[in-house]
């Protein structure tokens, strides 16, 4: 009885070892914590404060409270940009996920040298900096210098204009898919590698085909990784910026400066000198990204294993 009592920590106080562990925990997280606060929390708070002011060329900067937020959610440019990135998300994320999954499954079931070579090849586009990749595609898409013009000419056809306002959407989807699928594939592939192989063996003994194993065992086993990949893709696409920004040099009038919300914030700040409203746009976009991500994580709680 008395022995048992000694083991129980009295309610309301902490044992010496817990306090010490806590202190060490804080010390170990401090380097990250300081950087986190200095470069993320402080700018965030600052941006929020900036967004509470309004600047006009005639009246200067005045405090306007949340008026900027009222403006941004009725601003057709912001809303159109938002619609566009949501559309990109709807089109691009499933394509990337599907390709990544397909490639990962194929590579996982191959055990030859060819598999490791193709794994590297699929991953390679991700190793190319986004800006370089976008420049390269800009060249490939070019009507006057790209290879497609002469390729189509071989068959007596006219090459499509990849940089026209109507086709720029597809061109950008293609660019992003090319760049990111390999990265997502590697994440899914490594998840597949961690599945114990005896599962497959017993399935085979039960007479399951390879396709069935892939569909009924492998895919369910890696859903948490798939959810993670989707969140990566979701956040990345909602903040779409680099690719259209670089491609704009080649398709100046097909991609307006406020094409996506992020580009809009950039244009407001650096082209139109509206720091306060730019901060509002950034903050509003950040808020929406958080909402989207939380919503998605709640919806997929069961699959992602984030339930507890």
């Amino acid at each position, binding site marked *: 009885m008395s022995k048992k009592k000694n083991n129980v920590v009295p309610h309301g106080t902490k044992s010496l070892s817990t*306090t010490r562990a*806590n*202190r060490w925990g*804080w010390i170990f997280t401090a380097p990250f*914590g300081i950087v986190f*606060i200095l470069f993320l*929390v*402080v700018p965030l*708070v*600052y941006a929020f*404060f*900036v967004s*509470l*002011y309004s600047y*006009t*060329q*005639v*009246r*200067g*900067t*005045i*405090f306007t409270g949340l008026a900027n937020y009222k403006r941004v959610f009725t601003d057709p440019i912001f809303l159109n940009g938002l619609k566009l990135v949501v559309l990109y998300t709807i089109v691009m994320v499933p394509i990337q996920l599907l390709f990544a999954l397909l490639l990962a499954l194929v590579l996982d079931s191959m055990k030859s040298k060819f598999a490791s070579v193709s794994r590297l090849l699929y991953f390679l586009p991700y190793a190319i900096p986004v800006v370089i990749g976008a420049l390269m595609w800009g*060249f490939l898409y*070019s*009507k*006057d*210098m790209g290879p497609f013009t002469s390729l189509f000419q071989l068959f007596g056809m006219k090459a499509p204009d990849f940089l*026209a*306002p109507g086709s720029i959407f597809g061109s950008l989807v293609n660019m992003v898919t090319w760049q990111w699928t390999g990265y997502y594939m590697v994440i899914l592939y490594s998840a597949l590698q961690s599945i114990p192989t005896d599962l497959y063996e017993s399935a085979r003994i039960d007479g399951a085909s390879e396709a069935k194993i892939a569909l009924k065992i492998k895919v369910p086993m890696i859903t948490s990784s798939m959810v993670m990949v989707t969140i990566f893709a979701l956040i990345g696409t909602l903040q779409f910026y680099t690719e259209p920004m670089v491609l704009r*040099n*080649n*398709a*100046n*009038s*097909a991609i*307006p*400066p406020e094409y996506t919300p992020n580009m809009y914030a950039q*244009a407001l700040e*650096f*082209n*139109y*000198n509206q*720091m306060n409203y730019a901060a509002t746009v950034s903050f509003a976009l950040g808020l929406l990204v958080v909402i989207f991500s939380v919503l998605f994580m709640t919806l997929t709680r069961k699959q992602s294993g984030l339930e507890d």
Partner: protein
Amino acid sequence: MRSINKVLGLVLAGAMALSVGACGSGSDNGGSKTAGSDAHANDSAKCINKVKNPKAEKVTLWSWYPQVEKLIDHFNDTHNDVQVCWTSSDQSAKAYSRFSTAIKAKSGAADIVQLEYAMMPQYASGVEKHLVDLNKYGVSKIKDNYTPGAWKDVQLGGNKSVYGVPVDVGPVVMYYRKDIFDKYGVQLPTTWDEYEKAGLELKAKGYQGHIGNWQPNGTLFNYAYYDQAGGKVFKYSANDPEKVGIDVNSASVKKVVTFWQKMAKEGIVATDDTDTAAWNKKNVDGSYATIIHASWMVGYLNGLSGVQDGSIWQVAKAPGWTANDPAINCGGSALTVTDQAKDTKQAAKVAMEFFGDDQAQDIAVNDSGLYPTWQKKLKSQAFLDRGEKFFNNQKINTIIAPVAQNYKGYQFLPFQTYANDEQTKTLAAILRDGANVDTKLDAWEKTLSTYAKQQGFTVE
């Protein structure tokens, strides 16, 4: 643990206080401050150029003129009391973003900043009075050295203040491929009517390219076209800096845009964006029979590779609607003194003298490829007689100089970048997708007026 929490709390609170403080100080920006007179403030400035006389007072300069270092060296060689210290070579949009940042930070701008005429109202309107009125520093003495149009540009539509020393202009002329016109036996057009006919004729006779190009993203260039047809699209005066005039849907603008839309539909003009690699290539590979553009196209064409074999380039007056069309211009820039100048008087003196002698003008014209606003240079016989190699030694200045001379000056909005971006969208829709000219131009007018009002301007 509690103490660490406290520390973290303090850090956060400090950060918040900092940002609040920063905001507070940011809210009263604008308003012109008194002139600076600290001759030693720039003593430790880091210069890109090598200062010849380190003991003299330094004046800092931001500029991206080609070969500006030669100009600076010339200035420093010829001055003992003051030296120019070049501190940034950022170009156009990047330079303006740098200037805007320095304005917000209230420090860090150079004493003298190169600005395009079209960008000057942005820094001299409303609460943004960041350009020094050079009248106090005797700028009127050099007024007659410059073309009236360029002088109007630096007065920003007013008649009292002078916000910069004009440096160059971009008179618009027509560059054309004589060999193409000769090959197909087509007469060189002098009016827009003839231009369209020549385009159709070239096409009918088998020429694969286009007679010319209308660039939806041509920004300033397109305003020159409207002006030629009598369309004064923007009104702004430094006398009344809280009022703007926007007239982008007038009959003149509609006439010009409709005309080019028609030619685009007929397939005789291209609608390529400028300043892309593809555009560079098409300029010289025989895709265009004419390029109607500013004077700086001379140096630009010179520098392009892939010039088609056998091409013969010549310069002619740009086509017009009538015989008396005004001389048109695209671009040009000035040296302005900022309100952050450390020694305003000295900075103003440097700005006024920088291009103000024969040798500096020689460098500006020969090395930098600037089109002069300096009367003495424009009228000099050597300048007019100079043959340009790219144009088979044609004396092109005999055609371009009168255009520079007759330019009357334009007015630009204090939010010109925004207006330009909106124009690009409008013109792309009209010329590429064949959208209705009236609807699109009316919508552009409305967008700009709304923006102007939102910024607090009275719209005329």
